[in-house]
C-alpha cells in the first residue's frame, strides 16, 4: 500500500526537481504561480480584533468576478473589499454562504450596476467545473499554496507561494477554540504550513497551477491538538444533519432531522445561479441562556471536564436528578469537552423554558436526563469559584 502511494509521489518529485537544473527562466513553478496569481484576490472585511483578521484570500471563478472564499466572520460587513492582482480595489458583496461546507460565494460589485446584472468585467478566473472534472489529487502529489498569508500583500503585490505534497485525503476533525469545527467533510492535508492568518480562501494548486482546493482556516486537530494545514477539495462532499419540518400522521408540524449530502460542486453550481439554499441551522440565541442550577467543579483548566460538584436545591438540575460526580458529556447531541463548552452552549442555544437533553456519565454508565431550563433566580445560586485567568 505504501509503495503504491510513494511511487507516484516520487515521480512527481522527480519532475519538479528536474526544473532547477534548467535555467530558472524556464522554471514552471514561477510561471504557474504568475498565472494563478491573476486569478486570486485579497479580501478585506470585518475583524481586526481578538485575533480575528480582517483580511483573507479569494478565488475568482468567473470573468464577472464571482469569488469563492471561506465562510468566516470576515464577510460580516457591508464594506467588503477585494484587491485584484493588478492593484485594483473593488467592492464586493456576499451572495451566499454555507458554513457547513465552510464556503462562501461573493461577487465583485461594480459601481452603478446591480449585483445580478452583467457588469462588463473580464477577469482571469479558474474554471471550477474543469477543476472538479480533473478529479481529486492523491497523497504524494505536489501542491502549490497561493494565499495572502499574514496580509503580506496589498494591492498589486503578488500573493505568497508555498509548495509541498498532499499528505492525506481524509475527513476533517478539527476545532476552533473550544468549538468543534462545523465542517466534517473531505480535506486535503498538506505538509506545507499553508494555514496561517489571512491564508483562508487561498488556492491549493497542482504543479501546473490548476485549482484543486480552497485553503482552510487556522484549525486545531481535535485528536493531536496541533495546527492543521488543510484545504477543502473542489469536489468535496460532506454529510450534514438538516432540520426539516414535516407533517406527522396527525397532520401536525414537527421538526425532524435528516441527513443531507452537501457538495462543493453543487454549492458552486447553484450559488452561481443564485439558487443555493443554505442548510437551516438552529438559530443562535444570545444572552444568559436558561437556568439549570448545576454547580460544576472549580474551573481551573483550559478544558476542565464538566463534572457536577453540586446541584442547587429545587433547580431544574435537581428535579432531573443530576448528582455530584456526574460528568456531563453531551448536550443535545453536542459533545461537551469542558465546563466552558457547556456554558457556551447554554448561552448560545437556550432560554428559560428550553428543554435540553443531557448525556451524563455516572460511574461506568451513560445516563440520559432531560432538563426544562428555568428563569435565573433573582439571587445567584451558590457562588462558584472564579475561573482562573488564562495563561
Amino acid at each position, binding site marked *: 500500500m505504501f509503495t503504491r502511494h510513494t511511487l507516484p509521489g516520487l515521480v512527481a*518529485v522527480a519532475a519538479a526537481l*528536474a526544473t532547477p537544473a534548467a535555467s*530558472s527562466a524556464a522554471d514552471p513553478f514561477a*510561471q504557474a504561480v*504568475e498565472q494563478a496569481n491573476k486569478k486570486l484576490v485579497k479580501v478585506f472585511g470585518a475583524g481586526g480584533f481578538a485575533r480575528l483578521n480582517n483580511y483573507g484570500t479569494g478565488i475568482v471563478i468567473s470573468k464577472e468576478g464571482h469569488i469563492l472564499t471561506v465562510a468566516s466572520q470576515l464577510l460580516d460587513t457591508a464594506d467588503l473589499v477585494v484587491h485584484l492582482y493588478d492593484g485594483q480595489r473593488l467592492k464586493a458583496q456576499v451572495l451566499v454562504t454555507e458554513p457547513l461546507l465552510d464556503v462562501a460565494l461573493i461577487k465583485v460589485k461594480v459601481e452603478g450596476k446591480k449585483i445580478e446584472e452583467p457588469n462588463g468585467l473580464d477577469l482571469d478566473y479558474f474554471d471550477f467545473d474543469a477543476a472538479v472534472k480533473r478529479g481529486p489529487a492523491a497523497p504524494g502529489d505536489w501542491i502549490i499554496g497561493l494565499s495572502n498569508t*499574514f496580509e503580506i*500583500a496589498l494591492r498589486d503585490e503578488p500573493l505568497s*507561494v508555498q*509548495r509541498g505534497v498532499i499528505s*492525506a485525503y481524509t475527513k476533517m476533525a478539527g476545532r476552533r477554540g473550544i468549538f468543534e469545527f462545523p465542517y466534517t467533510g473531505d480535506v486535503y492535508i498538506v505538509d506545507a504550513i499553508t494555514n496561517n492568518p489571512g491564508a483562508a480562501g487561498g488556492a491549493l494548486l497542482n504543479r501546473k497551477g490548476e485549482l484543486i482546493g480552497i485553503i482552510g482556516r487556522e484549525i486545531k486537530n481535535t485528536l493531536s491538538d496541533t495546527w492543521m494545514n488543510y484545504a477543502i477539495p473542489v469536489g468535496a462532499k460532506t454529510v450534514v444533519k438538516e432540520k426539516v419540518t414535516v407533517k406527522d400522521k396527525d397532520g401536525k408540524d414537527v421538526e425532524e432531522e435528516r441527513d443531507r449530502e452537501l457538495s462543493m460542486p453543487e454549492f458552486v453550481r447553484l450559488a452561481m445561479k443564485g439558487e443555493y439554499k443554505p442548510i437551516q441551522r438552529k438559530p443562535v440565541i444570545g444572552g444568559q441562556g436558561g437556568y439549570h442550577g448545576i454547580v460544576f467543579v472549580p474551573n481551573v483548566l483550559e478544558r476542565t471536564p464538566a463534572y457536577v460538584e453540586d446541584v442547587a436545591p429545587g433547580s431544574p438540575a435537581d428535579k432531573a436528578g443530576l448528582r455530584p460526580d456526574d460528568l456531563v458529556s453531551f448536550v443535545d447531541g453536542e459533545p461537551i469537552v469542558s465546563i466552558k463548552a457547556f456554558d457556551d452552549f447554554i448561552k448560545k442555544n437556550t432560554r428559560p423554558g428550553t428543554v435540553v437533553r443531557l448525556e451524563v456519565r455516572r460511574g461506568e454508565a451513560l445516563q440520559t436526563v432531560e432538563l426544562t431550563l428555568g428563569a435565573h433566580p433573582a439571587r445567584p445560586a451558590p457562588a462558584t469559584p472564579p475561573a482562573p485567568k488564562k495563561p
Partner: protein
Amino acid sequence: MTRLLRPSRLLAAAVPALALAAALSPLSAPAAPLPVDKAVLDAQAARIEAIKKVHPAVVAVCMPDGTGCGSGVLIDAEGYALTNFHVVQATGPFPTAGLANGVLYSAVVCGIDKVGDVALIKLVPKEKGKPFPFVQLGDSDKVKAGDWSLAMGNPFSLAMDFTPTVTYGIVSGVNRYQPPEGKGLLEYTDCIQIETSINPGNSGGPLFNMRGELIGINGRGSFEKRGRVNSGVGYAISINQIKNFMGHLRAGIDADHATLGASVGSLSEDAPLQQMVVKQLLDESDAFRRGLQEGDQLLEFAGRATTSTNQYKNILGIFPKDWRVPLTIRRKNARQELLVRLMGNQAAVVERPMPGGPPMPPAPAPKGPAPKGDGETAKMYEGRKGYSNWYFNVLEQNKLLGAFKKHGDFSAVAGRWVIEGKFEMADRNGPMKVEIAEVDGAAKVTMRLNIETTLEPLKQTDVAVQQEPIGSGGLMMAMYHYHRFLTRGAKGFEGLFAHGGHEPFYPYPLDGPGPKSLAELRADCAVIATKHGSVNCKWYFSLKDATLLGFETYVDKDAKDTENRDPCEVYFHDYKDVGGGRKLPHKMEVRFRDKRYAVLTVTKYATEK
C-alpha cells in the same frame, strides 16, 4: 470505535510522507532501484554540488564565550562575513565565529546597519594572511516567486561543531515590505519571503539560489498562533540592498537609512488604483529645494515605479542616507525628473533597542565588565560616535587613498598653484585664471572669470562671501579645498576626515543634449567626507579605479536659511598628466542648484613646491 479509526487515518497520512523522505535520502537506497529520470539525478547532483561549494563559508556566529547565537556567511577571502545586526547586538563587538571545519575564530564587528538589520564582521585567520572560503554575491533583483532556494545556518544552535544546517524551499514572494520592529529599527524593505525553513539561530545566515550565489541574509519570520518557530513564512534581506550599504559596512560606519524628507502616501486609500502623491514636505529637505511640491504625483523613485505604499517604502528603504536618487513626478500632466539627496532616517542614535520579531534566541544579559577582544581583535576595534568601529574606517581610507595615489602624489607640490585656461557660461565666456596659495597658514584664492574675485577662506567667514563667485555656490572655497585635499590629505582636515561608504555620483555630459534619464549618468563611487574650518566636502572616487570624479563643497551645511545648504558641485573630466605622474583634470564642470554654473577648460597647471 470511531475514535480508533481516526488516529490510524492520521498514521496512514504520515507514513507515505515519511517513506517519501526516506526514499529521498541517499543513505537509505531502496531495495530495488527505482527508474529515476536522468534530469532528476542531474538536478540532485547539482544541488549537492551547490551546497558543497558554499558549505565551508557558512558561519555560526557565537557569543564571545563560544556559545551559539546566530549565523553568518563569509563574502571574501580576508574573512569579512555578513550577519544580522540583531545577532551582533547580542554578541557585542567581539563575537566568535565557527566554520564548518569545526574551528572557532575570533572576530570583530566592523560595520552595522541597524535599520536594515545587517552587520559585517571580520574573522581573524589562525595564520596570518591565510584566505578564508567565501561565497559569490548574486543578483537578488533576478529572484522570482517560485524559485528554489537554500537557507543555511545554525538553527537552535544545533551543531556543536558548527556544521551548517541546510534547508530547501521556494521563494514565496519578492519585494516584500515588513514594518520596523521596535523604535524604527529592523525594518525589512524589498525583502525576499521564503517558505524555506528558518528558525531561531538561522538569523544572519545566508539564503542561496541554486547556483550557490548569495541572494539574501535570513533574519525574521511572521509568527502568530503557532509560536516563534518556522511557520512557513520567513524573510531574508535582499543582497542588493546590502550591496548599497557595503561601502558603509566595510568602513565601520553605523549606517543610517534614507528618508525623502517628504511624506508620500496614497491619494485615496479607497481609490480603485493607488496614486502615490507627495503629502507634506520638510522645509529643510533637499527634495523641497529641488522643487518637489505637495500634490506632485510620484511616478518613479530611483527608476522603479511607485504603485503602492508598500512599494514606495520598499524602494526608499534600500538606500543609505545622503544618497542622490532620481525621482520622476507628474505635475499638471507634465513629467519631470529631479535628482534628490535623501535625508537620514534616525533622528538620533537609539540606545540598545530591543528587537521584537526576528527569530533569535534571547540575548543573555550582559555579565561582568565590558567585553574585550583577544590580543588580535582588541587591536581591530576603536569606538567613535557615528561609527561602529573606527578602526575599519581608517583601514578603508588608507586603501582608497593608496589607490588614489596611483593618479599622482601631490604632497611635494603643496605650494602656490596657478590654473589657467578659459571658462564658458550660459551667457558669457573668456579666459580663466585661478590662483590658490596657502603659505604659513594664510590662505588666499584669486579667481578671474572676466572679473577678479578673491577669498581668504579662513578669514572671511561670511557665508555670502564664501559662496562667491555669485551663482557658483562657493567655487573659490571649493578650489581651496581641492588644493588642500590633494596636497595635504587627511592632515589638512582637522574637523573630519572619514570614509563615507559608497554613493552614486552623477557626472553630466559636457556637450550635447542632456541625458534621457538621470539614472544613465550614475557612477558608483567611494566617498571621503572632510571638514576644514566650517566647510564640509565630499569627495567622489570611482569604484573602478579610484579616479576622483568630482566633489561637493558645502559652505554652510546646516545653514539656518536652508537655501544656503546646497553645495557647489565640481565634476572632473579629461585627466592628463601634468608631470611627475601627477594627473589633473583639464575640464571641470561647476554646478549649483540643478544648474550649470560654468565649464572650465584648463590649459596649464603651474604647481609650486
